[in-house]
């Protein structure tokens, strides 16, 4: 997904951050902030809370840079998963589980709608950036697979809760997440 040269550059920055280099942290922030802010906004939908979350995420990255393992994930994925975990913690702390479950379908539709618009636009011109590639890859997935992985990723629901919410058997939900993620991987490789 991320270009190898960019991954190497990010890794070098994280190593410097681990050594206490604030300038390197500033550069890393510039690389990641907008993507992480957008993700947290998608999950939380409240600008003030998103800012607090991103601040927490940045502190966590600063404090735990030494434990980053490049064999497990790229720096981008590492930061994304930290952000997602922090945002989901906040959702749970706010006690919004029930409310989100009720509106999850709308949010997923909205998310899919966003994906569709961008993917349509990207068909017109060459796919040049990561965002267009992901949106385009998402469009190649069967609808139920796409909805399953989007619900799994963009809400705080567990797979059991997704099954309950959608009225699908747990095994079906698990299979959709598995197949959806595998096909997304293959789709990203092909683009």
């Amino acid at each position, binding site marked *: *997904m*991320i270009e190898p040269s960019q991954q190497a550059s990010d890794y070098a920055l994280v190593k410097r951050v681990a050594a*206490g280099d*604030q300038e390197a*942290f*500033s550069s890393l*922030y*510039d690389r990641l*902030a*907008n*993507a*992480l*802010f*957008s*993700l947290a*906004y*998608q999950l939380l939908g409240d600008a003030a809370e998103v*800012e607090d979350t*991103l*601040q927490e995420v*940045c*502190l966590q990255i*600063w*404090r735990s840079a030494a434990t980053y*393992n490049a*064999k*497990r*994930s*790229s720096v981008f*994925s590492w930061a994304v*998963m930290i*952000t*997602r*975990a922090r945002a989901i913690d906040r959702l749970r702390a706010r006690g919004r589980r029930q409310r989100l479950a009720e509106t999850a379908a709308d949010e997923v539709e909205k*998310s899919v709608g*966003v*994906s569709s618009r*961008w993917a349509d636009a990207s068909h017109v011109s060459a796919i040049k950036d*990561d*965002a267009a590639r*992901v*949106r385009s*890859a*998402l469009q190649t997935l069967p609808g139920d697979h796409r909805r399953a*992985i*989007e619900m*799994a*990723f*963009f809400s705080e629901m*567990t*797979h059991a809760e997704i099954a309950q919410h959608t009225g699908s058997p747990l095994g079906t939900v*698990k*299979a959709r*997440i*598995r197949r959806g*993620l*595998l096909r*997304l*991987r293959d789709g*990203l490789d092909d683009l």
Partner: protein
Amino acid sequence: MISEAQQEQAALYALDLLSAEETAAFEVELSVSAELRSLVRELRESGAALAHAVEPQTAPPALKQRVLQQIAAEAAPRAAAAPGNVIRPSAAAFGRWLPWAIAAGLMVACALLARERAQLQDRVAQQEQATDAARLRAAHAEEAAEVARAETERMAQESRQIIAAAQTTPVLVALSATKDGPAKAQAVVAWDAARQSGTIKINNLPSAGNGRDYQLWAVDAEHKDPISAGIVRVNADGTTVVEFKPTAPAKSVQAFAISVEREGGVPKREGPIVLLGTA
């Protein structure tokens, strides 16, 4: 070869959807399979890529300033705590004598400067030698860093095992096939001694056959016979995840075993043990 069940666990693991016990059990599988680790990394990258699919937002510029200030505030105590920056209590008391100290210092400094110059020349020569040595070390630095990372990872793994063995929950026990069991069968038990309950995850174990059931046993140092932990039925694809509670308190579990028994299970083991793992 990665089974569909493992792919499923890998996908859920990559999106942080597994429970703590499932995560612990899956990490045991990960620790012994490079292929599985590679799949998890790919799926995690694909999952994280979903972050690109959201509507783009721009982080407020003021946020960066706040974050950098907070980082700087955190960094300051670290720097202050460095040995070279320690302020000794006597330094404050010395402040009263500062004007006198400056005057005396200037006199002494004049005398010392000549000697300093000679010493500096020596140091420059030493630094040149040290620079050469540093270049040699740098040539090997990347290799040494990789070795250090591997060593750190190994030590972390050992630490987790030691902590688990000491008291933290759950303790993980890997079960493998005995001579009487199917060669590819595997299982992992996550055992919580404090709660006297656990979860077993099984892969590649075929059906026990008509009129037969698999039965899980806890081998405990304080009991003469293994304690039954219940019947375990596998799915058609040879997998299952089952939560269990031994029928008697098991305070010093030494091993877990699965045997083939009469349908419905038996109070005391009779059949052959097909999977076994020591705690």
